[in-house]
């Protein structure tokens, strides 16, 4: 279980996260943000693996990644 959050005001809709998400679970929103960009959003929380590749590549550091920690044995 994992998810990402995209800070909507910060995102510039560059699409890099979308291009590199191995699960293709990000898309651009239909709503312009106040900067004039269509920001990215997670479309499928189930598929997100929390691999953080999107965050790694986001030039605006707009993404945070959350993951269910594996239980420690």
């Amino acid at each position, binding site marked *: *279980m994992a998810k990402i959050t995209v800070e909507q005001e910060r995102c510039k809709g*560059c*699409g890099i996260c979308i291009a590199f998400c191995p699960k293709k679970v990000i898309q651009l929103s239909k709503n312009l943000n106040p900067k004039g960009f269509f920001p990215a959003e997670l479309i499928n929380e189930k598929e997100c693996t929390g691999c953080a590749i999107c965050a*790694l590549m*986001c*030039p*605006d550091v707009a993404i945070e990644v959350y993951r*269910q920690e594996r239980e420690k044995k």
Partner: protein
Amino acid sequence: MKKVFERPKSLTDVHFTYCAGCTHGMIHRMVAETIDELKIQDRTIGVSPVGCSVFAYEFFNFDMVAASHGRAPAVATGLKRSLPECIIFTYQGDGDLAAIGTAEIVHAATRGENITVIFVNNAIYGMTGGQMAPTTLIGQKTETTPFGRDARAHGYPIRIAEMLATLEGSSYIVRTSTHNPQNVRKTKLAVKKAFENQLNNKNFNLVEILSTCPSNWGLDSIQSLKWLEENMIPYFPLGEFKNI
């Protein structure tokens, strides 16, 4: 769920002023993360250049000094010599470092100045609207090479890492890229090493990072990453040029 990726503390909350898709932002993050990880935020001083990253002092969350165009290595020298216990880095573009600031970077390197240099090579003058940089590729069209860079008229692109590696005082010189996750990870490792070396008083350290300029390349974010990979890397090979 646990947060596994968050904004580093060494970044302020201010939104970057970089264009959409510009990899300057990634590089900022990696520098900030490194400083977080090395726990040196309270004694790091960054020197920002003149170039698109001129506002870096607004984004990095520690003491910052804004240098004049090209002179960041000299400013950093003044800082390091008077604050030897602080960690000093410069963040410079290719116009800043490889053109007007050539003498300053060469001599900081040959002096073995114990600083870290983050050199963002995007093959163009971003901030001033896309003029030829010393690293602009042959054939590349820019505002001042509208018919493409021609070696005879405009000279050859300069390979900074290779050049500085010949200098006795340089200790870690590496070229990395930002065009895909693997390379971003490698870049991060290189940045970290360049800071660790400074902590270990290992002379002069420079990471040349190939970066994009979607706005002035006239490409979108994704095309830009591709252009970098296909055009820049063949001329600017990635790898360590010095590591002692």
